[in-house]
Each structure stands twice: as structure tokens, then as C-alpha cells.
């Protein structure tokens, strides 16, 4: 696997002492292992939007950057569908007012992903079995429907396929109710980049305690890790 493990480790080392990586860093770590993440910038708290979005294409997504906020969408820390830099600037003002009780580091502005079914790929380190990887039907309702399936790392391509096949909702990816079938091979590849031989969990299980890529948006042209959370091991740093 063509992973930049040294860069990923350096990113994590730089966040030693934190419970979790910032979303921006988490995505950078995913990118080190070949996962597609949105093009994005971080704008510091109180800084103007100005030319920060030059070179990026709208529509944009705005997300709050605040270590104390675990689930951003639950507190109104995510705004979708912002057409241009002006709309982003207005949305930042509004969100700053809404979240005035939180210590805010800044704002993450990303290119919005193409629509498609949302899945989750996650990982944990079990005290007995060690690193393991999860795939499931994603979004905020993942814990309600519990349509998830685990594999013990490193998973093989066959394991990944069988995990996907075990999901009750897998037909959502295969052209449910007239929708186009999505790029299932890209989902398998993403699972392997996180949980396969040489993947993120096998390379970083001494540093990473838990990981959520939720959602991973699947389209006819590959996958995009739209949100990511990497929880660090407490015994590190």
C-alpha cells in the first residue's frame, strides 16, 4: 500500500496530549493512506475569509473547529450548500453567534461532496483482538439502526466483500429503487486502506484508539471521506 506513514505519524505526534485529532488533521492522516478527502482550508477564529477560498470550487461546507465539540451537527456546527466566499463569510458570523458558549479555534471550509449513499467506516483497538475495522450504513443514525459489520485487522479483500455483503442495507449501494449502482470496489478499497494489510490501523494502532469516517459518501465515481474523527490512545504523549 502506497501510504505515507511517516507523515501520518508526524501529524499525530504533533497533537500529542489531545484526545482526538482536529478534523483537518484526521483527514490529512486519511489522505496519507490514500483515502479521498475534500479539498479544504482552515480559517482561524476572527480572521477574514478574504482570499482563503481561492482555488477551491463551491458549493462549500462550513464546519466549526472546536476540540470540545464531539458531534458538530448536533450543535449546529455544520452548514451545507454555501455558494461562494460571501455566503461562507455570512455563515461564519451566524455560526459564531450560535456557538458563542464554546471555545472556537476556527472554521473548516470544504468543497461539498457529490451526493450519494452514506456509509461509515470505523476502527477500534480491542483489548483482546487488537485493531479491528467496521463498515456500516452511515450517517447520524448508525447507532440507531446498528447495521454494521466488523472485521479483525488485517482484513483481506474477501473479508471486506463478505462484510459488505452482510449488511442488511447493502442494496442501497446496488441501485435501490432506480438509483444508479455506486462504485462498490471503491468502498472495498477504502476498507482495506483503513483495515487491510499495511492499512491505517495496522500501521498506527500504537497511536490510534478509535476512528470514525462517517459519512463516507459513495457515488458512481468513488468515495469521499466527508467527516473523520481519530481518537488518540490515552497512553501516548
Amino acid at each position, binding site marked *: 500500500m502506497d501510504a505515507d506513514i511517516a507523515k501520518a505519524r508526524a501529524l499525530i505526534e504533533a497533537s500529542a496530549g489531545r484526545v482526538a485529532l482536529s478534523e483537518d488533521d484526521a483527514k490529512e492522516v486519511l489522505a496519507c493512506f490514500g483515502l479521498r478527502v475534500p479539498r479544504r482550508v482552515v480559517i482561524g477564529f476572527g480572521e477574514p475569509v478574504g482570499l482563503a477560498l481561492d482555488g477551491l470550487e463551491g458549493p462549500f461546507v462550513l464546519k466549526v473547529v472546536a476540540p470540545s465539540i464531539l458531534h458538530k451537527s448536533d450543535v449546529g456546527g455544520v452548514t451545507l450548500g454555501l455558494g461562494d466566499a460571501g455566503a461562507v463569510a455570512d455563515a461564519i458570523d451566524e455560526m459564531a453567534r450560535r456557538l458563542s458558549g464554546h471555545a472556537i479555534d476556527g472554521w473548516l471550509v470544504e468543497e461539498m461532496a457529490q451526493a450519494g449513499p452514506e456509509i461509515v467506516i*470505523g476502527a477500534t483497538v480491542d483489548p*483482546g*483482538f487488537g485493531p479491528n475495522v467496521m463498515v*456500516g450504513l452511515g450517517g447520524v443514525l448508525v447507532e440507531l439502526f446498528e447495521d454494521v459489520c466488523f472485521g*479483525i485487522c488485517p482484513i483481506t479483500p474477501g473479508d471486506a466483500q*463478505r462484510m459488505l455483503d*452482510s449488511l442488511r442495507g447493502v442494496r442501497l449501494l446496488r441501485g435501490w429503487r432506480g438509483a444508479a449502482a455506486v462504485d462498490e470496489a471503491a468502498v472495498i478499497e477504502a476498507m482495506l486502506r483503513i483495515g487491510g494489510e499495511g492499512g491505517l490501523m495496522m500501521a498506527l494502532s500504537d497511536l490510534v484508539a*478509535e476512528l470514525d469516517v*462517517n459519512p463516507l459518501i459513495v457515488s458512481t465515481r468513488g468515495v469521499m471521506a466527508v467527516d473523520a474523527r481519530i481518537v488518540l490512545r490515552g497512553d501516548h504523549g
Partner: protein
Amino acid sequence: MVETVDFAPLFQPRSVAVVGASASAGGIANNFLRNLREDGFAGPVYAVHPTAASVEGWPAYPTLAALPETVDYAYVSVAAGRTPDLLRAAAGRVRFVQVIASGFAEAGEAALEADLVAACHEGGMRLLGPNCLGLYSARAGVSFISGVRMEAGGVGVLSQSGGLGADILRRGQMRGLRFSSLVTMGNAADLGPADLLQPLLDDADTQVIGLYLEDVKQGRRFFEILRAAGARKPVVVLKGGRTEAGARASASHTGALAQDDRLWQALARQTGAVLVDTLNRFLDALLAFQCLTPRARPSENVVLFGNGGGTSVLASDAFSRAGFAVPKLEDEALAQLEALKLPPGSSVANPIDTPAGTLRQERGAIGGRILAAVAAAPGIDAVVMHLNMPVILAYSDPDILPNLIRGALEARGAGAGRPHFILVLRSDGELSIEAEKQRYRATALSLGVPVFDELSDAADALACLAAHERFRHGA
């Protein structure tokens, strides 16, 4: 400890020492000594007793160190607190020691347990237990419980519970399982599932492995051994405590969802091990693997044949739920069945439902003709014959039932491609019928046919076999 251990002295010990038997009263160590005689243990047996010259008719020595030779296996049943020093002084006279006493880590005495392990290693031995019941080895003639059969078979079992180990042995034998060995592991302070699995996988006398597990300390090693084995030998896992809510605080969706149950399902999916939920299903699955040879083509299509309309309907449901098809028979088999001109009330569609009156034809020999037509039909993977015993035994001719079963066994065909054949003997629990059932069970088993009590049990057991076949097929 990383050195290679030879486990033959454990699974088939040739010399045994027993510590903790009384010269006057009778405890479990006395039972163990008596069993060795009754079960025909052929090698030397040494009792260890501070003063007596013999115990239960075996020669006694004051300490393990005083034994005239190094024994393969020592059964030690003395109070927990005395055990470490007793073993520390064993001076290399024991290869494997099993410590029966409780009162170690399970009772909060982790330091005592650590001392026990250290004492064993200092004394040059490997430890089973503590807090367990003992060992069963059919070929050696060793059993920790009295009155079980010593007829050797191919089922090897590791149990993290002693009591459940005894249940597995007794109940399993009643339904036809024949064991190579059964080891109770208790707290698994030294040797645990991950250590004992590989020797069982390598053991030529063991054809199928059953594991009752609660807490696997080296889960990853256990997984890697199973994975490397590639399900060449079937492994059935009954895992206790799978529904316990994950106690870990979690900062992610995934962490909250990573429960024990899901990880064991992952292990099964990735290694081809078969995961079951109850003791009954565990024993039934082992029986299916003991009797039936996995087919190269994963089992899918089942023919059901027997007496009882409602039973046939429920049977179809049970097999469908278990993932099987109960397909229409193709024309040639159907024509053969129709040519038998079964009386009204019979149905030759699958499920083949033949009222007891039909089965009486030719004093039961009709059963063989029906099955001969079915067993030769292409695409059939399993044939399940179910007989409602009280109904058939109500007829005055006592030969009908044996003729039915014999005819069926003869008609099931030969060779590697023949369908799995399964017998379901349904009883109302009446004592004389239960006794008959045990006789037919023995006959069927001697011919390699598993017998189940109910059709749903047969469906679940066959599903375990089919899961194994699918894994092997896909591997």
C-alpha cells in the same frame, strides 16, 4: 514461554500422578484414581500422600519429587493456598499439571494465581487451570467424571468451564458424540485456548474441534491460529458472555458499536469457525460434523421426507429460515415416486409427506424405495427423513420402524457426491419410546448417520455444516 511444547503427554498421558486423594475418605481426587482403574488406564499411576503406602489401590509417594519417574500428567486437588509450594517442590517430575482448586484470580486472589504460574514454570511444568475439573482422554483411559464411555472418537473439546465440560461429555455422548479428548481450562492462568488450539488442530485423532470459551486473553493469537488453519478442520465455538454490554467508555460511533458479539461474528466470518448460541446447538453442530463429510458444493437444496403434514410444513419453514431451499423435485425423480403409487393422502412433492399408513406398506420397505428415487436426483444436497415414533410404533408390527430406517440407510447411495443423510426421530418423551429411540440412534450412528430430536435442530446443525462448506468453497 516461547519454546515448542509437546502436547501429546497432555492429550494422551501415559503416566499419571494424583495429589489430594485421601487414604480413608473419598473426595474428587479419590474418584479420579478409581476412574483410572475403571477406564482401563494402562500406564503407571502414582498417588501422592504424606503417610499412606497406597491410596485406592495405587502406590503412594510422600511428594511429587519422590516419584520414581517424570509423569506426563498430574491431577492436583489440594487447597488453593498450598498448591504453589507443593508444585515448586515437584523438581521436574511432572510435564503437565492440572490444578482443580478454586480460590485464585476468580476469587480476587490474583497474586496467588501469579505465584502458582511461577511455581509451575520453576518446577518445569505447564499448568492447566486452576478452578477447573480435569481431563478426559479416551485413548489414554483418563476421565475426570465417572460412568462415561471411553470409546474414542474424533471430537476434541476445550472448555473454559469445568461443569459445562462435564455436560458436553455426558449429553454429547448420549446423542452420539465420540470424543478424542476434552480439556477443562478453568482460569487458564498458564495454558489457555490460544495455546491448546494449535495442538488440537494438529492432532491426527481429532477430526472436529468444539470450544466453550468465556474470556480469551490472547484473542489476537487465537484469531491468527484459526485464520492460518483455514478451516481445514471444522471448529465450532460456543462463546459465553457475548451479550455483555461493552463497558468501555467510547469517544466514537465505532467504539460504541464494537461489542464482543460483533467481534466474535467477525472472527467466525474471517476464519470459517462456526459460532453457536446454545449448548444444544453446539452439540448438534458437532454431531453433524462428526457424521457428515463436507461437500465440495455448499449444501443448499434439501429434501424432507416423513410422516406428518403439519410437521412437514413447519420443517420447510425451519429449513428456509436456516438458509436452505426445499425445491420441487425434477421430473425423473417425480415420475419414479409416482410409479410407486402411494395411497391417497401421500404427497410426493417436496416435502414428501407420507402418512404412517403409507409407511406401513411392505412393512416399512417403501421408505427405502422413496429415498432411492430422491437420493439419485441431481442437485439435492441433503435428505432429511423424519419419523414420528409413537405413531409408527402404535402399529402392532414391530418391524416397521427398523425396516424403514434400514431401508433408508441402504437407499442413501454411495460415493462422495451423495447427499447428506439425516435422521430425525421424534418422540413424545414416553420412556419406552425414548429407549427405542436410543437403540435406533445407535444403529444410525454406527452407519454414520446423525440423529436429531426435532427438525429445527437438524436445520440448525445442517446450517453449521453448510457455513463451513461455503467458507471452504470460497477460500
